[in-house]
Every structure is written in structure tokens, then in C-alpha cells.
């Protein structure tokens, strides 16, 4: 399967996202909620992509456990990482929306938002978990177990929270079936744009990791084992290879081993 280059993918992302936002402000009609409703086109796609990203990470984790190929672990890690970042955006935009709509910075009777908060809190623990396990292979394995467990948790949690609160505030999305065509189109374009954004950023980050890893390899080849490379990872991503790492996934995390 021919995968488009990162450059082409990024260009598509920009184009579609720009189109989406243009539609939001110049095409989509106002509804009963007023101008505030425009946040919906940003907040909901971010939430959907974030949650989907967590599930995708779980799938990568399953592949990692089955094959042992560290490439899948890298993909799982980066998927969770980007989904957490998107999650921050979801919570921030959700909070702003709550404040604008109901006057409070947080509302507990918005089941989607609450359920998302819980999922977010869970996935944030992914980082200290990875950081606390020294052995590289074991760390990857346990992280995969976590990603699978947490992935199974997401739908369960959503169900439970939804049941806990009768829907006082009609969820804009539960009335999505009743979204007028123009709003639906705008929403779909924004969703596509955000999804592409997620995919592009994941690819971007995996490429950066791969470059770092190759650099480490190069350094080792030039200097020999006596001079191990400096810490190849940044503080932001604790799961990256340490100076003594020999995990072969470093060779190229963007393409799977044969």
C-alpha cells in the first residue's frame, strides 16, 4: 500500500483544517445556543480523535505483545502521547464552553466531559508508569498491557458515567442526528481535519524519534561503545532509549520490521 509522504499528508491537513474553520465561521448557521456553539466544531472533533487515539494505541499495544516488535510499542506510545495532548485541548475548550454556556468553569452533569476527564487522568499515569520501569523490554511490555487495559476501559467508563447522570443538558451530539445539513457538513470537515492533524503529528513525532535513534546508532558506530551517546530522549518523553539502550526498535520506528 502506498502511503502518502508526510509532506503531502501535512499539506492535506492544513488544507482541510483551514477549509473546516472557514466553514465554521463563514458558512455554518447559528443555532439556538448562539455563537458559542461554534466551539462545538473544535471541541467535539478533538474529543473524538483523542478517544479514538487511545483505542488505536491499544491496538498497537496488542500488536506489540503479539509480535514483540518494538516498532508497535513506539507507535502505541506516540499515539497515547498525542491523544493526551489533544485531551488537554478537549478539557480546555470544554471548560471554556461550559463557562460561556452555563457560567461555571466546570460542570459535572455533562457526562461526556466528565467521562473524558476520567480517561485523561488514567492515561496521564502512563508516563510515571513507563518511567518507573527501568528495563527497556519490560517497560514496553507493561506499557502495552496498560494501553490494552485502558483501551478496554474507555467505553466502559463512558457507559457508566452516562448512566450516572440523566441528560439534563441536551448534548449537542446526541442531537447530531438532527443536525441540519450545513452544520453536519461543517462538522464532518472539521472532524476530518482534526483527525488528519492527529495522524500527521503522530507521524511527525515518530520520524523525529527515528532520527534520534539513528543518530545514536551513528554515534556508536563512530565512537565505539566506550563513548555512549548522550541521552537520546528529551525530558518530555520518558520512554525513549537511555544512553545504554540497545533496543533494536531504535533502528527505525516508522516502518515495521519484516
Amino acid at each position, binding site marked *: 500500500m502506498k502511503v502518502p509522504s508526510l509532506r503531502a499528508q501535512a499539506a492535506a491537513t492544513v488544507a482541510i483544517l483551514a477549509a473546516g474553520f472557514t466553514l465554521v465561521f463563514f458558512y455554518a448557521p447559528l443555532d439556538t445556543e448562539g455563537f458559542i456553539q461554534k466551539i462545538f466544531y473544535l471541541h467535539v472533533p478533538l474529543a473524538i480523535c483523542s478517544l479514538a487515539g487511545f483505542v488505536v494505541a491499544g491496538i498497537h499495544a496488542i500488536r506489540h505483545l503479539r509480535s514483540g516488535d518494538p516498532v508497535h510499542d513506539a507507535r502505541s506510545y506516540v499515539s497515547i502521547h498525542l491523544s493526551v495532548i489533544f485531551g488537554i485541548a478537549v478539557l480546555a475548550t470544554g471548560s*471554556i464552553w461550559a463557562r460561556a454556556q452555563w457560567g461555571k468553569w466546570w460542570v459535572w452533569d455533562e457526562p461526556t466531559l466528565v467521562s473524558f476527564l476520567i480517561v485523561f487522568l488514567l492515561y496521564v499515569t502512563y508516563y510515571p508508569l513507563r518511567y518507573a520501569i527501568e528495563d527497556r523490554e519490560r517497560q514496553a511490555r507493561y506499557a502495552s498491557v496498560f494501553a490494552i487495559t485502558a483501551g478496554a476501559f474507555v467505553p466502559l467508563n463512558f457507559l457508566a458515567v452516562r448512566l450516572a447522570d440523566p441528560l439534563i443538558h441536551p448534548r449537542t451530539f446526541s442531537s447530531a442526528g438532527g443536525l441540519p445539513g450545513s452544520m453536519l457538513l461543517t462538522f464532518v470537515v472539521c472532524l476530518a481535519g482534526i483527525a488528519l492533524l492527529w495522524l500527521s503529528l503522530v507521524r511527525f513525532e515518530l520520524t523525529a524519534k527515528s532520527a534520534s535513534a539513528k543518530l545514536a546508532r551513528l554515534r556508536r558506530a563512530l565512537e565505539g561503545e566506550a563513548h555512549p551517546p*548522550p541521552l537520546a530522549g528529551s525530558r*518530555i518523553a520518558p520512554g525513549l532509549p537511555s544512553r545504554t539502550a540497545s533496543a533494536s526498535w531504535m533502528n527505525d520506528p516508522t516502518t515495521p520490521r519484516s
Partner: protein
Amino acid sequence: MPALPLDEAGKYVAAAYVVFVALILVYVAIMAAKLERIQRELGELADLAEQKHSGGGVSDV
């Protein structure tokens, strides 16, 4: 009609989109820092390789 009311609602909507853009830009900035480090190391290794090459190409493996 792209009415952009600069009343209360407008500020919140703007805030939400600003947060989104800010997050993306922060991410880009961090990746830029990573890229810079990769660039620097690559330069160092290139120097090292040239050194070895001109120094008779003796490997210390």
C-alpha cells in the same frame, strides 16, 4: 453571513480557538528544539567522521 459579534460569546469562542492554536504551536516549538539538538549532534558526528577519515581512517572498534 459571517457575523462576528464582539460581544461576550465571541470572546469565549476566540479563546477556545486560541487555546487550540497555542497548543499546536507549543508542540511545534518543542519539536523544533528536538530538531535543533539533532542538527547539532549531526554536525558533531560529521566533524568526527571527517576527522577519522583524514586521520588515516583507523577505526577503534
